[in-house]
């Protein structure tokens, strides 16, 4: 198994075009588990860790560009946490300090798990995914990017470059249900934004449908909103919880989140 480490985005895009079967990894927190347990043996690995263009975050005309290599630890602190508090809260619930130091937003999008913790807050903020290939760039709204359990619309020659978000600065929060605070794959999760400026409540939930899902309603629909959220879910029974429990938990989380955001 070859490992190639590109130093620039251009180099990475050429590699993606040349090696469509290769597995691309950023922090490695998902891919290494597959390798360690012999669940996948890709013909080659491409290590994106050294591509400076994918790192960190920046501002662009009032919007934020979150690099695919932005770690959860970085999303938890500084000015970014002030701009996107629900994303910061969600990042704080990912794995452990060790995982948060390596796991990235781009990895969460690439893995496209319905349990991806960064996904609900990004969806509730109307995030757009920027992908690139040697053919050019595409901007794909997050709800169109994620199409199923661990499935996204990335073409074989494309790389996730960044996520563009226009922060609503709405009162917002993220909540997650699991057996303990750390090292938990969410049983279900919810990001809620009470967008007073737009007169809108937006909730995005995880682990209760094949993809994260967005629900919105006018601000004055507060009373019925928890039921609306629970009704939008299509959860399954699995080792982490039953469908009925997930639906119930989402209703409870939505109620608590509303209390927190509209207090």
């Amino acid at each position, binding site marked *: *198994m*070859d*490992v190639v*480490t590109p130093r620039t985005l251009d180099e990475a895009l050429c590699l993606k075009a040349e090696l469509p079967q290769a597995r691309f*990894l950023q*922090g*490695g*927190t998902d*891919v*290494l*588990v597959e*390798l*360690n*347990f012999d669940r996948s*043996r890709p013909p*080659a*690995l491409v*290590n994106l*860790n050294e591509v400076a263009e994918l790192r960190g975050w920046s501002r662009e005309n009032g919007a934020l560009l979150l690099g695919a290599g932005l770690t959860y630890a970085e999303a938890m602190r500084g000015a970014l946490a002030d701009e996107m508090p629900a994303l910061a809260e969600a990042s704080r619930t990912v*794995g*452990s*300090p*060790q*995982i948060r*130091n*390596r796991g990235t937003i781009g990895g969460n999008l690439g893995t496209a798990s319905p349990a991806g913790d960064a996904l609900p807050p990004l969806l509730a903020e109307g995030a757009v995914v920027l992908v690139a290939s040697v053919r050019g760039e595409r901007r794909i709204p997050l709800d169109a990017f994620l199409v199923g359990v661990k499935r996204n619309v990335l073409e074989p020659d494309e790389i996730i470059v960044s996520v563009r978000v226009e922060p609503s600065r709405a009162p917002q929060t993220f909540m997650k249900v699991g057996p303990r*605070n*750390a*090292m938990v794959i969410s049983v279900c999760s919810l990001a809620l934004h009470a967008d007073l400026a737009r007169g809108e409540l937006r909730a995005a939930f995880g682990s209760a449908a094949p993809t994260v899902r967005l629900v919105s309603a006018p601000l004055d629909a507060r009373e019925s909103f928890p039921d609306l959220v629970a009704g939008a879910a299509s959860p399954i029974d699995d080792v982490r919880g039953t469908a009925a429990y997930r639906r119930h938990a989402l209703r409870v989380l939505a109620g608590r989140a509303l209390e927190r955001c509209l207090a």
Partner: protein
Amino acid sequence: MKIALTVNGECRETEAWGGESLLYVLRERLGLLGSKNACEQGECGSCSVLLDGVLVCACLVLGAQADGHVVTTVEGLADGDRLHRVQEAYVQAGAVQCGFCTPGLVVATVDLLESNPSPSDDEIREALSGNLCRCTGYAKIFDAVHRAAMS
């Protein structure tokens, strides 16, 4: 493939297979057995090391990703025969039972005290949440962290 990295202040070079984790490289290629191999999925923290000064699970880092980087393992903490103050505190507090989780916890504690010299119990709980002790010796581990913070 060839990997060259700085481990505990020493330049090391080794052959490795591309799919190997940093943990495998450290243990099997470089003979550094302090970092323990248990879950291989980032759940237990017993392989915790510092990569460019950042706390990571060595089992979740590709060996090749450490090429050209700086790694500190539990072996790199003591100064010759003189234990690091965190190691000393673990000994003094009796925070070691079977000892398997100890290297990872010691490295995670060193990392915690670096950024937060006098952590509260909640901050310790948070910082060490990625390290499991199957002997459940957590009370003594908390004692050790407080002891190290005061030393």
